[in-house]
Structures are given as structure tokens and as C-alpha cells.
């Protein structure tokens, strides 16, 4: 055999060992003046252009680069940001925003009302093809301009009256308008730079910002590096650098956290039980509702008694136990932490009453009930929920639901073209006002796949949006919620989601937010544990 075999093997082994052992070991986190906060983003932000961003990841980054007229405080109430104050006319349709005069872009220029006017009209410009253009449809002529029914943008209801005074004219009173101006799509933009650089104006070396951080580096599909913006008007930014690693696989992010390469990660549902009692575990309920909708156009769910029977046959308290992510069981639709949330609304778990309503509808003991399918998009959480609901409906109503899961885009197409008898969807808040949740189910609404409509409901939602009196507004939403989840039971609210994180003990000032937004300007790292 080979005489050189042994020597070769030895050499190879020694080389491999040297290769590994002589390599420098990855260093840990820095702190204090050199603070570097590292966390994982689940996906690449599709864009950092505020007019085009629609997803949570992009918006999370943009919120740390740009600031608009208003921003949310810890209770998600709109407070002044670039606007120092605002006034609204008696009819509720004209808003005047007075801008601070000490807000600068990162290149030193002042932020002016023109930057807002340009940004808002750009959002509405049909050529921008912004998905969130409808956010500003309440502005005069905005919808017509976006839909090319008028050609010029001069008549759109936003105008810079002076460098620091912005006037907004609405088609109807919108009491939550200062919440809309905190949305990332309404931040000011620089016309000169966008016209100069086109699509590439968000490249790190070209992007000019007015928020706490500036974009230092963007290695696509890998990492974004944000650096403290020294021109920021809103006080000292405590951490010099924020690094957002794009890590699709959450277990990889967890391994990196465990091995000291990250300061914050999102937990997968299956990892939560292992960390629930950990001091680094953070659970944050979200303004995100998860529901089952009925196709009310066809039997058997065109009968509200059947829908109510289903809703009452489900014990929602089982869901947090199987999902274990700190979900909050839901029977009403406006989430906790939002104005007009009322946990007393909605149908309680009551199998006896459910069976009675089902019998009244002509299906005693579940007999002669047609075969129906429960559809959901393929996903671990959706699968667990569907199996549980299937079991509960069988147990409490003696009805067998067949489960039908499909790929996400196929599922969305199916919802539009051939709505399943029972389907799953969820909704996360675009702005923390009940209008955003309740508006979903107005008659013929694009997101209302149930086919259900109720003129009284529509009227309540429309009136509540314009009602400046909190008590009467609350009562309108209360009545509307009762129609939606009790009398008509067009949907079955199941739970409100929560976010589960691990945050290192030496990270301070990290405030999770029910809208899945994180502001890093208050974050710092110290030697002391929090």
C-alpha cells in the first residue's frame, strides 16, 4: 500500500488544526462611548424610500432615520416631532402644522414645510405607484389625483404657507389625523436629492436624513449599519452605532445571540418555553389581531345563527396555551392598548348556547351540516390554530371541518376569487386608532373578504372617525364592535399577537412598542445590568 499515506495524513491533520486554532477569535460587544447595538432583522428591508415602504422591516429602519410632523409616545399617542404644535379649524377639516425652526437635515439644510408638501404629493403621485397612497386620501383632491382623475397636483390639500407652516385641507373631519402624520410615509423628503439620484437616493452615501440615525452602510441581504446623526434635533442619541443583521433563519439569530454576536433577537414560538423565565426575555403584546372570517355570501354561513354558534363553540383560552407566545385571547376586535378596546364585547365561550343556535338554524347536533373547509396559508402557527379549532368545533358542535392549507400568494388569490367558507387572516395596526381596525369590515371594503355588510356598521365607523368627543366616539365603536362580533358575527376574533424577544441585560433604554416599531435613540449599553 502507500508508503506516504501516513505522512500525508499527519500533515493534513496538523494543517487543519493550525488553520482553526491560529484564527482570531471573534470579539464581543463594545459599550460606553463606542456603543454598538446589534440586532437581527428577519428579512432584508425591501426599500428605505418612505413613499414606497409597506412592510414592518423597512418601516422599522426608516423610523430611525426620518421623523415626521408627529411621533408616538410610549402610550402610542401622537406628540410633536418636527411640528411643534398644530391647530384644527372648527369644522375639523383644516389643519395648520407649525414646524420647529431648528430641525436640520444631515447635510445641514433646514427641514421646511416644502419638504413635507413635496413628500406628501410624491406619495400621492400615481407615477410613484405608492401602495400606501390611500393613507392621505382624506386630503382634498388626493384620491382624484392618485387615480389620475385630475392631472395637476396644485389642488391637492397640502400646502407650505411659509417655510415653517404647513396647511392641510381634508375632505372630512378626521380626529386621528395627527396619528397619520406619525406614519413613515409622511416624513419630509428632499426633492433636490430625489430628482438628482432617482431610485438610488437611499444609497448610504447619498441618503440625507432628519432622524436620530443616518445610514452608514447597507450590505444587501446581510447588514445595515446606522450611525448617530450629529445634526439630529431631538436630543442626545446614546448609542453611536446600530447594526441590523439580516438573518432569515431565526434559530441562526438565536445561536448568534447565544454566542455573543447579537444584543437583541426575536424568538420563534418553539424557543419561547426555554426562555420564558429568563431575565433577558421580553414579551410585548401587539396591536395585531388574528381572526377567522366567514364567507357570508353562501350557506351555511349566510345565517348569522350558524356564525354565532361557531364563535361561541370556541374556547379562546386554549390558544395561548398551544401557541405559548404570550397571545391574548380575543372575542372583540379592537386590541388592548388601543382607544375603545372593550374586553366585555364579543361572544363568550358557551357550548350549550352554541348548540342551541345551531339547532335553531336547522342543524341540531350538527346533523345535515354541509361539508365546509377551513382555509389558511401554510405556516406553523396557522396550522396549530386550525387543528385546535377543528377539534373544538367537532367537540362542541359535532361538525367536521376539513383543513385546507396553501402557499401564501395562492391563498390570497383564493380569498379574492373563491373565498373559502372559513378563512384565517390577521391585521396589524398601520396607525394606533380603532378606525384602522374597524374600517376593514365596511361594506365592500377591499380587505373585507367576508362579503358581509351592515349599513348601520358603516355609518357608525364613518361617524366615529369624525367624532371629536372621546366618550361618544368610544360608544360608537362599542356598538360597531357588537354588530361585528356579536349580533352579526361576521368574524371570529381569536387572539391578539405578541412579540417575543431576548434583550441582553446590559442594554438599557430599549422600549418595545405595540406597533412593532423600535426607536433606538434611547438605547445604550452599560456595564451594569438593568
Amino acid at each position, binding site marked *: *500500500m*502507500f508508503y506516504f499515506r501516513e505522512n500525508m495524513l499527519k500533515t493534513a491533520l496538523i494543517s487543519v488544526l493550525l488553520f482553526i486554532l491560529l484564527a482570531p477569535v471573534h470579539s464581543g460587544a463594545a459599550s460606553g462611548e463606542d456603543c454598538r447595538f446589534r440586532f437581527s432583522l428577519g428579512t432584508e428591508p425591501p426599500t428605505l424610500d418612505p413613499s*414606497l415602504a409597506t412592510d414592518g422591516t423597512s418601516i422599522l429602519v426608516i423610523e430611525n432615520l426620518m421623523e415626521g410632523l408627529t411621533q408616538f409616545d410610549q402610550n402610542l399617542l401622537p406628540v410633536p416631532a418636527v411640528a411643534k404644535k398644530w391647530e384644527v379649524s372648527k369644522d375639523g377639516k383644516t389643519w395648520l402644522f407649525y414646524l420647529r425652526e431648528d430641525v436640520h437635515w444631515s447635510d445641514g439644510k433646514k427641514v421646511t414645510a416644502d419638504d413635507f408638501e413635496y413628500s406628501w404629493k410624491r406619495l400621492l403621485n400615481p407615477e410613484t405607484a*405608492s*401602495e400606501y397612497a390611500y393613507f392621505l386620501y382624506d386630503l382634498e383632491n388626493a384620491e382624484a389625483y392618485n387615480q389620475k382623475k385630475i392631472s395637476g397636483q396644485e389642488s391637492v390639500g397640502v400646502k407650505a404657507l411659509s417655510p415653517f407652516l404647513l396647511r392641510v385641507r381634508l375632505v372630512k373631519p378626521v380626529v386621528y389625523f395627527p396619528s397619520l402624520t406619525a406614519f413613515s410615509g409622511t416624513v419630509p423628503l428632499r426633492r433636490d436629492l430625489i430628482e438628482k439620484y432617482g431610485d438610488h437616493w437611499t444609497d448610504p452615501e447619498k441618503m440625507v436624513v432628519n432622524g436620530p440615525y443616518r445610514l452608514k452602510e447597507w450590505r444587501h*441581504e446581510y447588514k445595515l449599519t446606522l450611525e448617530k446623526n450629529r445634526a439630529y434635533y431631538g436630543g442626545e442619541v446614546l448609542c453611536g452605532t446600530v447594526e441590523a443583521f439580516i438573518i432569515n*433563519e431565526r434559530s441562526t439569530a438565536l445561536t448568534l445571540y447565544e*454566542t455573543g454576536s447579537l444584543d437583541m433577537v426575536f424568538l420563534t414560538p418553539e424557543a419561547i418555553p426555554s426562555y420564558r423565565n429568563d431575565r433577558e426575555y421580553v414579551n410585548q403584546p401587539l396591536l395585531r389581531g388574528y381572526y377567522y372570517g366567514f364567507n357570508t355570501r353562501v350557506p351555511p354561513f349566510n345565517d348569522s345563527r350558524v356564525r354565532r354558534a361557531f364563535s361561541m363553540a370556541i374556547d379562546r383560552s386554549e390558544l395561548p396555551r398551544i401557541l405559548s407566545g404570550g397571545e391574548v385571547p380575543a372575542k372583540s376586535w379592537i386590541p388592548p392598548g388601543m382607544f375603545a378596546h372593550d374586553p366585555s364585547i364579543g361572544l363568550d365561550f358557551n357550548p350549550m348556547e352554541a348548540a342551541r343556535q345551531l339547532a335553531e338554524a336547522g342543524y341540531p347536533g350538527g346533523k345535515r351540516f354541509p361539508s365546509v373547509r377551513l382555509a389558511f396559508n401554510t405556516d406553523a402557527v396557522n396550522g396549530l390554530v386550525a387543528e385546535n379549532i377543528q377539534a373544538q368545533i367537532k367537540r362542541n358542535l359535532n361538525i367536521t371541518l376539513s383543513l385546507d392549507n396553501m402557499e401564501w400568494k395562492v391563498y390570497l388569490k383564493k380569498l379574492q376569487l373563491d373565498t373559502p367558507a372559513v378563512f384565517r387572516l390577521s391585521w396589524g395596526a398601520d396607525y394606533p386608532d380603532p378606525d384602522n381596525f374597524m374600517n376593514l369590515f365596511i361594506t365592500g371594503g377591499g380587505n373585507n373578504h367576508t362579503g358581509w355588510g351592515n349599513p348601520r356598521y358603516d355609518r357608525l365607523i364613518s361617524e366615529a372617525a369624525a367624532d371629536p368627543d372621546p366618550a361618544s366616539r368610544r360608544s360608537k365603536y362599542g356598538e360597531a364592535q357588537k354588530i361585528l362580533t356579536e349580533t352579526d358575527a361576521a368574524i371570529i376574533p381569536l387572539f391578539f399577537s405578541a412579540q417575543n424577544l431576548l434583550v441582553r441585560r446590559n442594554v438599557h433604554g430599549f422600549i418595545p412598542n405595540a406597533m412593532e416599531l423600535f426607536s433606538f435613540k434611547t438605547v445604550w449599553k452599560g456595564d451594569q445590568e438593568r
Partner: protein
Amino acid sequence: MILFLARRVLISLPVLLVIATITFFLLFLVPGGPFDREKKLPPEIEANINAKYHLDLPVWKQYLFYMSGLASGDLGPSYKYPGRSVNEILHDTFPVSMKLGLASFFVAISAGLAFGILAASFHGRWVDRAAMLLSSGGLSLPGFVLGSGLIFLFSIKLRLLPPALWEGWRYMVLPSLTLGLGAAAYIARLVRSSLLDISFHEFVRTARAKGLPESRVLLKHMLRNSISPVLTVSGPLLAGLVTGSFVVEYLFSIPGMGRYFITAVTNRDYPLIMGVTLVYAVVIVAANIIVDGLYAVVDPRVARR
């Protein structure tokens, strides 16, 4: 030789055209569109978006539009990543996958040859059986299991190598092993059986009878004559490794293009799907042409035919 390669390149152009055409029309058969969202867009806004990306044109016009762009090297805009073109995305990600693919290819070929030669030269003995057992393991272990195992051992337990990310050569070791070891196992089996096939040929017996050392018989005479099957598979293998692996890139958080083979489809990002498909096709064609060239080096009769 040059003529031989030039002919192969020319033949491959219509192949790429057919692939582009078939892929383009297949995309329209998949239900769901790029702008279908959980939050349904108002139809007017959807119309603005369709107009921006020419999705409001008839399919045949879209095809001509795409093909005319392709002819000038423009792969179009990405629908999922507004502001980035498919060219830019591939420009950013392909070199990463290329690097990882070449490193894995090196692992596959070197480990595959070593194990194959070892097994053949100890044919029927425990070394042979152990090498083949290992290669069966390598073949049957899915990437995410092997990768997770390597991360657990080298990153979490021994703390020798980083568990993920892409900062330098140390970050390449585990992903290259994960991607390359399965292929190595395959090559090891191929080399072994090919060497065993050839070991009873007369030229081998003659070489031994001349009194050449066994290593020289094996490396100079037997290996060269049994390398053709390895060359045959190495073309598609290289293409597969270079175009990246969804699983390995996902697991190790590597910014390569492999992920787009899946995510471009789930996002219905049509131009990106076209882009990655074409890159894959070009890499396969190129790898095969290189392999054909190598055939001609190993066996000069090929070029003469």
C-alpha cells in the same frame, strides 16, 4: 480546440432563449401576483403599480418588452425591492455564492477523491467499509441537519468557528463543509467504483509488472483513466454549488443568491425569477463547456470528433 469550444458556446445560445421563453410564460400560470398582500390594495393603486411595471400590457407585449431588455443585458426591475434592478441584485449576491460554491467544490473534489482512492486501495477492508459508510451518511444527511450539527460542534461546544454571518475566511469553513460534504460523498463513491472497474485492465497489470510503486500506478495510470465519470458530474455539480444553496445560505445567513431561487418565487418577483433562472442556466452551460474542454485534455480523441 478553440473551434470546438466556440461551437459549444454558439449551440448554447438558443438553449438559453428557450429557457427564458418557457420560464416567462410559466410564471403567468402560477396563481397569485407580486402585489397581492394581506392588506389588499385599492384597485386604483394596484392599477398605478401595474402601469409602472408594464403589467397592464398583454402577455405577448410584456414578453417582447422583457426580451428586448434582455438583449441589451437589462434584466428589469425587482418588484419586491423597489429601486433595485435585478442586475444590481445579482451583481451583489452572485459573487458571494460563487465564492461559497467554489470553496464547496474544492471540499467536494478533494475530500471525494481522497475518500474514493482510500476506499479503492483498501478494497474490501475496514477502511473501505468505513469510507463508504461515511459517504452514505454524507449523501443521506440533509444540509440543514449536517449544518446544524457542525454549528453545534464547532461553534457552540468548541467555540472554534463562527456559527453564521459572512465576514472573512473563517466564516466560510462551516458553510463550505455543509455544502461540499454531500457532494464529496457522491464523488467518493464514483471514484471508488471507477478505480475498481479499471484495476483489472491490462495496462494496470503491465504497470504493476514493470515494478512501479503502487502509488504511481494508482495516481498516474489508474486515476487519469478513471476520472471521466467525475468530470461528467462535476459540471452540473459546480453549477449547483456555485448558484448557491438556499438551505446553507439561510442557515448561515450568507448574502448569496441561493435564497432567491425560493423567495423570488414566493414573492412572485417575476423579473428576479427570470434573472436567477437565467444565471443558473448560464452557469450550467458554462460549466458543461468547461468540462467538455477538460474531456478534450484528458482524452484528446474527444476534440478530434
